[in-house]
């Protein structure tokens, strides 16, 4: 909180100094990145890796401020309402595109100006290693014959993986029983204990259990196979047309001047390409995916449309 106050204090000081800020090149003071999720999580990790490299590239300090609560609403809301001067940015996540549809907050990608996308992780349909199902089709066939019998755990009601499993359900024409949890980790524990039949979470969240032979992945919801799981077919390959995943990117409040966004975009591309950032993402098993500002903005719009459609179909 001290850091944030310091940023404000400097901001006001500059304002009082007769708006000299107009002539100083951007950026000339520390930049704060709002992270809507808790310290120590995946989003926080990638934000810190980004901030560390960005401090070098931009020549000003980048600090991370975790503003948690309301399933990400608090942080996104704070970031959207911040002064649109490029000094308060938000690490936006998939959930931003679901708030309106779920009736959680009147908040969406329109409240932000996209800068860059830096990460994307597809959903992985995972079951116990000794499950009788060896392909996604086996699971779908079972679900067809026994509607609602297949228990699929997800990371929370209306969460990215709940929506992913619902997409699979709709596309394959079956019915699952969705079991929401308080995050992906408890869902994985329930799967390990054999209390549910499958989970839809990111590959990183089940990777170790797959490697030691307790779980297996039936299909991954990415466009192409993943390098780390080359032997696992995509969901599309198995005849179900679903491409879905979670993603993270950097965005500024919507009224931020275009030239500032352009400067940030250019610098963040350098950060993204730096070996240190790439290595940090790899260590945390976070998928790397770059989109520039205009592509990311377009992508955000589509994501919100898709999520809204999915939520209204499922009530």
């Amino acid at each position, binding site marked *: *909180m001290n850091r*944030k106050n310091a940023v404000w204090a400097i901001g006001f000081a500059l304002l009082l100094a007769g708006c000299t800020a107009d002539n100083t090149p951007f950026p000339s003071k520390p930049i704060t990145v709002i992270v809507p999720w*808790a*310290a*120590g*999580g995946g989003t*926080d*990790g990638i934000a*810190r890796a980004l901030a*560390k490299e960005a401090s070098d590239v931009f020549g000003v300090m980048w600090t*991370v401020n*975790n*503003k*948690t*609560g*309301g*399933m990400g*609403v*608090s942080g996104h*809301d704070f970031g959207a309402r911040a002064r649109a001067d490029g000094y308060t940015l938000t690490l936006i996540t998939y959930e931003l595109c679901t708030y309106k549809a*779920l*009736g*959680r*907050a009147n908040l969406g990608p329109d409240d932000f100006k996209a800068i860059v996308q830096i990460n994307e992780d597809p959903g992985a349909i995972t079951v116990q290693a000794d499950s009788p199902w060896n392909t996604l089709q086996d699971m779908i066939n079972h679900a067809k014959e026994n509607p*609602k*019998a297949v*228990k699929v755990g997800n990371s*929370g*009601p*209306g969460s990215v993986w709940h929506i992913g499993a619902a997409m699979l359900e709709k596309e394959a024409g079956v019915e699952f*029983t*969705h*079991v*929401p*949890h*308080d995050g992906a*980790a*408890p869902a*994985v*524990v*329930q799967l*390990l*204990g054999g*209390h549910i039949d499958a989970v839809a979470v990111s590959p990183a969240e089940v*990777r*170790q*259990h797959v*490697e*030691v032979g*307790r779980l297996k992945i039936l299909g991954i919801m990415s466009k192409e196979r993943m390098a780390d799981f080359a032997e696992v077919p995509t969901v599309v390959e198995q005849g179900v047309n679903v491409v879905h995943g979670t993603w993270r990117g950097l965005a500024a409040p919507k009224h931020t001047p275009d030239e500032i966004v352009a400067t940030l975009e250019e610098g963040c591309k350098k950060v993204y390409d730096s070996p240190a950032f790439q290595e*940090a993402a790899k*260590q*945390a*098993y976070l998928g790397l995916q770059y989109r520039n500002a205009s592509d990311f903005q377009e992508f955000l719009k589509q994501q919100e449309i898709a999520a809204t459609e999915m939520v209204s179909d499922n009530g």
Partner: protein
Amino acid sequence: MEPSIFQGFQVALEFGNFLVLFIGVTLGILIGALPGLTATMGVALLLPFTIGAQMSAAASMSMLIGIYIGAIFGGSIPAVLIRTPGTPASAATLMDGFPMCQAGNAGEALGLVTFGSFCGGMISCAIMIFLSPVISHFAERFSYAEYFALAVFGLSMIASISGGNVLKGMISGIFGLLLATVGFDPVSGVPRYTFGMPGLLDGVSFIPALIGLFAFSQVFMDISILTQGKFEQPALKNMIPRIGGMLKHWFLIVRTALMGTFVGSLPGAGCDIAAFIGLNEAKRSSRHPEKFGTGIPEGILGPEACKSGATGGAMIPMLTLGIPGDAVTAIMLGALTIQGLQPGPLLFKDHLDVVYPFFASMILANIVMIFVGFVSAKYIAKIVSIDKKILLPVICVLSVIGAYAMRQSLFDVAVAIVMGVVGFAMRKWDYPAAPIVLALILGPMAESNLRRALLLPDASVMMFFTRPITAVLLLFAIGTVIFGLRSSMKSGTAVSDAR
């Protein structure tokens, strides 16, 4: 060199690593002792620091473990001295700790806290080192019905912690359960009873509510006594704790520490639940349950050993499954990931060089804790002799900061003040506050798991009888209620006899 626990100690005792561990424990005690600054927050605050300082994996884990162990212990210091739990886990300790302190035995109360906490921590370390795989395997058998039954067992303790009046205890418990329904519905995700206030989306913020119920209500209480001019400063005697008297309760300590370790190892159940289970067990096994709440050693040792037992327990799912046992270990997991280490089944296979120093640091942190605890008890105990006219404003300021700090939200400060007024009214009319705490912790756990269990296609009421763990826990719950009612009737007659 072949990794072994000795090599672990060698790494953990390297000057730099031990230094940050020592700093971590001391800082942790301070953080824990400040109301509102919890173990979770301490670890979250220090994590960026360990990254910024480019610490090695061993050093950063030493520091974070130190903070965790220190803060869980430190939370009980203000609970005992000024009836304000520094962390939620200490709400159980104050029920006997504070009366003991008021009787002038502040030093002894602190000694009991330190000793109980140390024993619990050490026993849970031993379990963690030798039995992690076994415990985590058993914990995997806990599904929704079992978690629901555990929460019900916890809630049944309201009967035994209500201090003589079970009816009033139940009224506060139900009030707490009602408060616990505020926020996102755990199954449908729809906001409930938030009245359009974003600050209530996650429910009534727990830490600010706790600060209000205990810190503010105590301040209001003291002010009302001070203005009537009836206030007596508690005397200070028995400054040095005696270990001999504590060893008498060794069996209670071992039992509660083992229970705490197991509760801690369940993802989603941590130190706070453990502390109440410890208190309940101490009271259940006591020959004079009616004396609880008057300031007896068992009332401190039980919850302290059980709550510190949960610290080692919480590490078990993190190390064996890569899944956090509580909010603090969730952050530690992140810290290890940043260091390029993925906790989980592979860590035990590939990275014993990290696992053993981790174990060693846990043990050392507990040793540093008892050392700092005993050395400082004499000085810290003097807080009770500070003039209330100085102490109360200080508590107020710290409480407002604590309520604000959690989410940097003024809304939470308002929550704390409102709950302070509620807490004051409750004390005036003799309603116990502990049931609200218990209900706020366990209400969401009971609700979400019952509803998940009922979602399943094979759900039926029979699950409460046919699932062995569920059935046993529900039996415990029934037993606790019967016991609570009986002992409250007994103490009820004791009071009327005295009149």
